[in-house]
């Protein structure tokens, strides 16, 4: 049997040989540059803290990274069905689980690549324009469990939490993509999840029902913990609790994707 990596290489080829992927990466590079340069020009002030601006830009760019990964993931399964290429893909000497796994791995690699590009660009442009400093400025609140750690460690954990949220949204998109074979539906609902999540969490804080903390939205944004807050201020929640909840949802999403994809009859 040939190597599983061959399958991942194929999926990579289908991602990186398309123009749109490079447009996405271009946008990720461009946005922090425009923001930093634009803000500096507008405020005519170049003594801001590079880490503060980097943190703000990261939050903006990460929404984009999530959207881009959702688009690619929706296309990755549903697109093969709508183009009919799924037939030629599934008649190879591979189990369907391996084929789906290779797609999932390629998507995660794509999201990691984008995160690295985002980190590199936001760091470099802000260090260049505002000057490098190891002073975190006001970015780490006093209530943060990371208080006293270096700004590098704080940024690293911030990226990790943002990425975990991305993995959840992408797994959700992947599930819809393989369940409904419709990339539009997968993209739409996942972006809804990404943006409505915050609003819905806000609404949920108004109730004091205990079950609210088990809802996906309430656990999606782990960066609250990084700033020493709870995602639902009136609830007793810990990082460990949220990680467990996310793991449960992660397993459910992927179990659905896998089951549907493995059992599905490929017709027309």
């Amino acid at each position, binding site marked *: 049997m040939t190597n599983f990596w061959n*399958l991942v*290489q194929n999926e990579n080829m289908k991602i990186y040989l398309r123009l749109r992927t490079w447009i996405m990466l271009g946008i990720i590079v461009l946005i922090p540059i425009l923001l930093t340069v634009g803000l500096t020009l507008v405020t005519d002030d170049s003594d801001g803290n590079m880490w503060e601006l980097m943190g703000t830009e990261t939050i903006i760019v990460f929404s984009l990274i999530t959207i881009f990964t959702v688009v690619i993931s929706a296309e990755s399964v549903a697109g093969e069905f709508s183009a009919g*290429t799924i037939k*030629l893909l*599934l*008649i190879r*000497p*591979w189990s369907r689980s391996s084929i789906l796994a290779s797609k999932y791995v390629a998507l995660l690699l794509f999201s990691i690549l984008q995160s690295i590009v985002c980190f590199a660009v936001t760091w470099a442009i802000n260090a260049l324009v505002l000057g490098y400093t190891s002073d975190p400025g006001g970015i780490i609140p006093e209530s943060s469990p990371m208080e006293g750690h270096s700004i590098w460690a704080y940024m690293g954990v911030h990226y990790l939490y943002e990425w975990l949220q991305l993995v959840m949204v992408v797994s959700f998109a992947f599930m819809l993509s393989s369940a409904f074979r419709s990339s539009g539906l997968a993209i739409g609902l996942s972006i809804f999840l990404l943006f409505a999540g915050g609003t819905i969490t806000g609404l949920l804080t108004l109730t004091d029902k205990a079950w609210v903390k088990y809802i996906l939205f309430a656990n999606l944004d782990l960066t609250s913990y990084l700033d020493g807050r709870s995602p639902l201020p009136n609830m007793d929640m810990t990082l460990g609790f949220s990680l467990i909840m996310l793991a449960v949802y992660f397993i459910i999403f992927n179990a659905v994707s896998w089951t549907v994809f493995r059992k599905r009859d490929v*017709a027309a």
Partner: protein
Amino acid sequence: MSQAPVARLQEVTKRIGSRTIIDRLSLEVNPGEVFGFLGPNGSGKTTTIRMMVGLMAMTSGDIEIGGHSVRKEYPLAASQVGAIVENPEMYKYLTGYQNLVHFARMNPGVDRKRIDEVVELVGLEGRIHDKVKKYSLGMRQRLGVAQAVMHRPKLLILDEPTNGLDPAGIRELRDYLRQLAQAEGTSVFVSSHLLSEMELMCDRVAIIQTGKLIDIRSIRGAAASEHQQTEAREVLFEVDHTDAALGVLQGQGGVRIADGQLALTAAREEIAETNRRLVQAGIRVYGIRTKTKSLEDQFLEVTGGESVD
């Protein structure tokens, strides 16, 4: 080469809801033969093919390819199959070559040299580095054949392969399939609703209708020709004076005049004998033609010309 069948379908049944799409279908495809799978539209040809390549699950029964069950050992069974299911849909945003590299990575033992070889085989050398979206249907069909044969499968499965091909393309494909069956011992399983085409391409043809196997017939090969030697068939003689010829042959099996020609029923040796008698009687014979029962006649005979329901 072993004579064990390359593909064996055993009591294959597919039910969707209460509808039985394929009903206890059993057949075997032998090594090196071109096996036709004939049936009207909607008779279950594509469904059967989809089950053979693992795109659809069987409700009951099993399919073995090279002795491996599609149900239980799918990767082993699939490694011996090359297929085009319906249209050869390739990745349009990749070049032809990138498409082949993609599928080559999924099959063990296909290197760059083999890819070049199949590109040449299907005659796409000039355009292989163009994006597939610029290809004509015929070129996509060729690329489809290339991806199906590049790992030297024991069984090549083609679903309606001549759809959208021009007559030259059909002829080329036909010659290529026969060559593949003879030279490399590849078995070919080809479905079609076009009878005349199957007649030219296949060694044996299975006829299905509404999901049931109706008949399997040999089109050529030893069995068929032996059959032809002894069986009396309708023969037409083209002669200068039909009336005089009728007189000479008076009393011979069913002799009559049809469409200005002399028609009679005769076996192979009798044809030569009849000709000798005509010539000896001074009648000029311009042509002798045996009316073979075409597959179309056979098909209509076994299906009773029923419509699809």
